[in-house]
């Protein structure tokens, strides 16, 4: 009998110790899933924007909507990378957490470049649009170069 109680007690203790660990790791996986989702969404809008700006498809009426979406989705990129979301299914480099200031700067630069593109879209000047769009791409690439591993 005592053995059984001790046994139960041990299970209980183990459970109490293990629980936060389990829940933290689950949470971290979800954070990563969310981040990937948002990044994919940005990529989708980027692809659409690119095709319109480069004159490959005629959907010019949709352009503002795509750029707007990108602007909102990139308002706070560092928030997508909280502490503890640095392990598991992620290609984020350690530099994201080791050099938060550089990362923040790069993220802001990207968001600013999208704001400029949005202004150009609202202004309706094609060459301005192409030039600002190029800057957006450079921002994406710059950040991925320093802060993301290849597949």
């Amino acid at each position: 009998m005592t053995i059984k109680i001790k046994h139960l007690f041990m299970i209980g203790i183990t459970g109490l110790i293990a629980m936060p660990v389990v829940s933290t790791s689950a949470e971290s996986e979800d954070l990563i899933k969310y981040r990937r989702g948002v990044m994919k969404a940005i990529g989708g809008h980027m692809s659409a924007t690119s095709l319109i700006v480069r004159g490959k498809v005629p959907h010019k009426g949709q352009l503002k909507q795509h750029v707007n979406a990108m602007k909102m989705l990139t308002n706070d990129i560092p928030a997508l990378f909280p502490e503890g979301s640095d392990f598991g299914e992620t290609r984020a480099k350690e530099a994201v957490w080791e050099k938060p200031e550089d990362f923040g700067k790069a993220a802001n630069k990207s968001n600013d470049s999208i704001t400029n593109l949005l202004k150009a879209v609202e202004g309706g000047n094609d060459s301005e649009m192409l030039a600002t769009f190029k800057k957006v791409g450079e921002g994406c690439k710059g950040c991925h170069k320093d802060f993301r591993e290849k597949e």
Partner: protein
Amino acid sequence: MSRWHLAIVLCLFSFTAFAGEQEQLILKGEYLVRAAGCVSCHTDHDNKGAYLAGGRELKTAFGTFYTPNITSDPVNGIGNWSDQDLVQALQQGTAPDGSHYYPVFPYTSYTKLRQEDIRAMATYLRTVKPVATKNRAHETPWYLFRWIMAVWKWLFFEQGEFIPDPKQDKSYNRGAYLVAIGHCTECHTPRDAKGVLDNERYLAGIKDGPHGEAIPNITPDKKTGIGRWSQDDISYYLKTGERPDGDFSGSLMAEVIDDGSRYLIDDDLGSMALYLRSLQPVVNPDFVKKKEKKKAAEDEW
């Protein structure tokens, strides 16, 4: 006009013509240094190293290498090299003192460079600002002596300039040349245990790259390669880093683009794309599984 006047005018004329030619040669050399992807490895971007002053750490299965300084500094760089020294280094993998380079320096690809192009590169490199960054010794396993490389070369190194395919047009051959000297194959083609490229699977990608990451199959296979990318998609990607799905390449490929391919003119990028599109599509089984697994997981949802 007196004879003296005429002589002076002729002298000035030939001098300006020479200066113009020299200028052209330097520009051509710089373009080729970009196209051959020299800059990423010979510049230590991570530690804010000077342009082409070397020092970049390259971790490989055969030890850790530190790229040398190739600025015009006569002591630490290659300021004292003749054109022929550079030809020998790039085409044969042999240093001016006769020692053999480790093939982490991709002379296996650079051997395809035309001599006249290497001379242009040498002319340009002599104009690069000298920086006195000292070269760092490689950290290689004890058995990897320089002289072993002579044996390695004898067994595996095929020396020879690029030979255009007479059955193909100019653009195809230009693309083939640029893909060769851009040494795409060094990362994108799988290797065997001896470190030799498996040309049966030319450019078909690998599962575990130098940083443990997958390197994509860039043959036109529709399922596991870039067969769904148009020629324009490929050249636009090499210019900007933007993939057709709106994602941007990071890490090593972003460096290749930033330091190299984005400097190329559209015609050249188009030729590279045309060449890549015309390759034999190769299925990479490592990537098939991955995709099928993904699909199965999606089906469960």
